[in-house]
């Protein structure tokens, strides 16, 4: 299984939703790292370690945005095993699940 280390492969300073919001935004992370795994019908581990934090704007757009892009919550949860070894980042595991469950698919 591939591992996506957000801090190393994307940025340790995530924030913002859209490309115009900043250099480490949720849309870019979703399109570069998450969508290709779903399209290839593979599975991946997503490692949160090493980032300064995960603001709501980034997390919701990255993971909730997958639902709006047409993937189901079940597909997303089966595809990605989201983990951290840093206790201070554990709260974001819960938030990610909330954003996946709370996002509404586009009609």
């Amino acid at each position, binding site marked *: 299984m591939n591992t996506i280390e957000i801090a190393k492969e994307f940025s340790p300073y995530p924030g913002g939703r859209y490309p115009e919001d900043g*250099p480490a935004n949720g849309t870019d992370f979703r399109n570069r790292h998450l969508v290709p795994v779903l399209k290839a019908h593979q599975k991946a581990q997503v490692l949160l370690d090493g980032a300064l*934090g995960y*603001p709501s*704007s980034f997390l919701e757009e990255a993971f909730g945005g997958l639902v709006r892009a047409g993937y189901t919550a079940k597909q997303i949860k089966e595809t990605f095993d989201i983990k951290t070894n840093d206790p*201070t980042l554990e709260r974001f595991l819960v938030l990610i699940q909330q954003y996946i469950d709370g996002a509404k698919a586009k009609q």
Partner: protein
Amino acid sequence: MDFETIEAISVGAALVLAAEIDRWQKIKNVKLVLKNYSSWSDDVKSLLHDIGFFALLGTPNSHSLCHGFSGEAISVLELISCDSANGERIAEISSRLSGIASAFEQDPVMYCAVLEAAYNGVLHGYPEKFSFQYPPLHKTWWATASWSPKEQTVKFIVYDQGVGISETLPRSKLYEKVVASLSSVTPVGSTLFKSDSTMIEAALKVSRTSRSDGHGQGLRDIVAPVESMAGAKLRILSGCGEVLYRQGEQISKRDRSNHIGGTLVEWTIPVGAT
């Protein structure tokens, strides 16, 4: 520019002042000149120096006090400014702060709060069609942090010169819930609905209890340090309103006669708070 009569200045006020000078210089392209500098209060000069006020003015750096770790003086970080949700700029605050407050440990909750406050300014603070009294530096925010050895607290402050929370709220997805929350205690259209502090307070309350999906989550990140760090407090000044929120849901508010010219968000965190 003569500050001879100013005896003391807070870090927040210095940030607002520095931001205004920054705006003035970039928009007007006019060089401001200091008057009676030798008669200014040493404390005022020191704080303005630390926050980068004189560097903004491009004036010779004649005042170079070093607070260091000893004594009771507050150490203030040179402000940073940006026009996007750039986390790397915000990380600069934390890394510099660790240098002066050795006991300070970065908490991801604080990073998220500062980033979302700055992002709120970028995203909502400067609507394109709004008629500003003074031309703003669109999407721009300013931030600093300070360390008080006497109080053993750090402060993080983010300021934007946008239209203010009560002006942007009607376009927010939280607004319906804010109106519902307020209308349970006062009729829609009453003067309370025109009070900036009431609108800020209602937005805070709704954001803490709402589990809304999608947009509108940022305010919850802004409040989160107060919820998770013992003794932390959050002060928001926006428009004419001021709200102070401490852990344990004690929210106090008031409205001032003058508009602050944007939104200032200030967290005070006891060092070692968990």
